[in-house]
């Protein structure tokens, strides 16, 4: 049994009179793929926003490797290795694919003003390494030939892949994907599945994802968390979830 990397408990988020998330808890173990599912409007993305610091949760604790991270700003949590994608693709559209990847490495680069001004050897080295790393991942997501194309001109599926590659640039420990398969065709979904497998097996990345494509969820998840109307409904392995009467009821409505 691997140890828990991300643990949230009693997570609540209130917007005025609306309790969007109520007492959600989840545990993501290292090198696991955990999926969060639930009907539309269940509060999945709100949970994501709380976990990544885009919202400050009203109540509850979030532990990353035992360290509390709730209430930190988004970029601070990202720096601790929790990196996410968005439901709608959020690439830097005017910038080229490779520039998108370079921006994401900002924190690992030599950003000293003077060394950049005079192109010192250490600056050149850091830029070269960044380029090599970006290139490596462009190849991994099969986008190398589009390296110098503005990201906004890529096809939708390519943009999705580029976004995942961009997240990988930050050397994340846990990657949170918000509906990565939305709008992809079956072939692209298969590729995505392979990519997520690659991330976990070869790059030691833990993945937490929100997804509606049940075939994908059931085939790659180690663990599934079901949320309904902001409250946790069920929690277990894919087999357990498949047979859980409450889950079926929530999805299909009462018979």
């Amino acid at each position: 049994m691997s140890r828990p990397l991300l643990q949230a408990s009693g997570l609540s988020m209130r917007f005025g009179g609306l309790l969007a998330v109520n007492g959600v808890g989840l545990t993501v173990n290292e090198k696991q793929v955990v999926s969060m599912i639930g009907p539309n409007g269940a509060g999945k993305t709100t949970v994501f926003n709380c976990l990544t610091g885009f919202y400050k949760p009203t109540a509850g604790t979030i532990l990353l490797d035992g360290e509390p991270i709730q209430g930190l700003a988004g970029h601070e949590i990202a720096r601790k290795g929790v990196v996410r994608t968005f439901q709608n693709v959020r690439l830097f559209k005017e910038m080229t694919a490779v520039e998108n990847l370079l921006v994401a490495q900002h924190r690992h680069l030599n950003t000293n003003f003077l060394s950049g001004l005079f192109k010192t050897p250490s600056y050149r080295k850091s830029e070269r390494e960044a380029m090599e790393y970006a290139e490596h991942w462009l190849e991994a997501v099969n986008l190398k030939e589009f390296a110098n194309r503005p990201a906004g001109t890529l096809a939708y599926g390519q943009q999705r892949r580029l976004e995942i590659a961009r997240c990988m640039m930050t050397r994340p420990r846990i990657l949170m994907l918000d509906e990565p398969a939305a709008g992809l065709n079956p072939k692209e979904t298969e590729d995505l599945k392979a990519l997520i497998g690659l991330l976990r097996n070869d790059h030691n990345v833990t993945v937490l994802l929100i997804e509606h494509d049940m075939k994908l969820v059931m085939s790659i998840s180690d663990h599934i968390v079901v949320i309904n109307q902001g409250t946790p409904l069920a929690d277990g392995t894919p087999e357990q979830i498949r047979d859980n009467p409450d889950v079926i009821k929530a999805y299909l409505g009462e018979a």
Partner: protein
Amino acid sequence: MTRNLKSALFSAVLVLLVAYPILGLKLDIVGVNLAVVGASTNTVLVIFGAALLMFLRVLYNEQISAMWRSRPQKQLVSSRASNFMTLPSTQRWFLGAIIIVALVWPFFGSRGAVDIATLILIYVMLGLGLNIVVGLAGLLDLGYVGFYAVGAYTYALLQHYYGFGFWICLPLAGLASATFGFLLGFPVLRLRGDYLAIVTLGFGEIIRLFLRNLTDLTGGPNGISNIEKPTLFGLTFERKAAEGMQTFHEYFGLEYNSVNKVIFLYLVALLLALAALFVINRLLRMPIGRAWEALREDEIACRALGLNPTIIKLSAFTLGAAFAGFAGSFFAARQGLITPESFTFLESAIILAIVVLGGMGSQLGVILAAVVMILLPELLREFSEYRMLGFGALMVLMMIWRPQGFLPMQRPVMKLKGER
């Protein structure tokens, strides 16, 4: 057809309504009183002619545009030429050529021309600085002139009260402006777009009003005069040197010639503008430059990737302001006299126009636009009343034909390994 007729009539009446009071009526002194008199018949005829033209233009709008379309598609600037013009390599060659020409011509040019060129260079510096904030970081700053004023007054005050020289004050002025940029950056960090524009606009005005009302310190509306010009390693270009100084012409045993001073100022401006160009060019390709652009594109994505938007915005504001400070202190040195009225909102608008006209983010574009924006009013001196009309027309035409600016920015192409 009736709708066309209606809008055509409306347009024609609008032309009459706008043009007649402005051009068709004149104030004249009759005895001791002012009287309104009509303009000459010719002017009135021209106004009616314009209204008629407008009427026909709108009435036959569809036919005219159909005619335009039926002509073989020929762009104003062919797309290939435009692409070639904006390629980084071409721009580099262009820049090289421009620099060489800029270094050589003042020795052959007329005094007035060199003087105007110096002014253009000041605006190039300002345009390049504002380009960081507006073009790259995407933060609309309408109070840029405030930083320019801070730079100018820093030098003027230090010179006036403590007798500091230009070269010491230049970095100090940059530092002072950068500090102001940093301080302004804090409260406006949460704002974007229109709100940011309004707050920065207010900031620019506050600085100007402060300078005007702080009479004891800044001399109020009279400003500060007798500001020293820069020296060449302690050699002044005046006819007579102050105590303990030497003049340029005596040192080199030349005849005194006031043109030397003008050329020297021009060369200093050129040096500063080139330094700004070099630094900003590097900044663009540094991680911070990429981060600025990323912030302009998508702030939320930046945060999700661990980039701190606060620091990135502040650095853009601070660095942009620093360049305005350099430009300001040089401006003070060149003019020898500064008043708060040199730093009105109109200046901000001109600098912003330079950035937009040139093409956001494009450096060669900014230089070209600065030349056009400053040279045009100088050439149109005789038509001084219609200068603003010319500006407006230029802006409208640009927005129709080339909304991306003269020379829009092109993305740098990154060579990957294993490619030719």
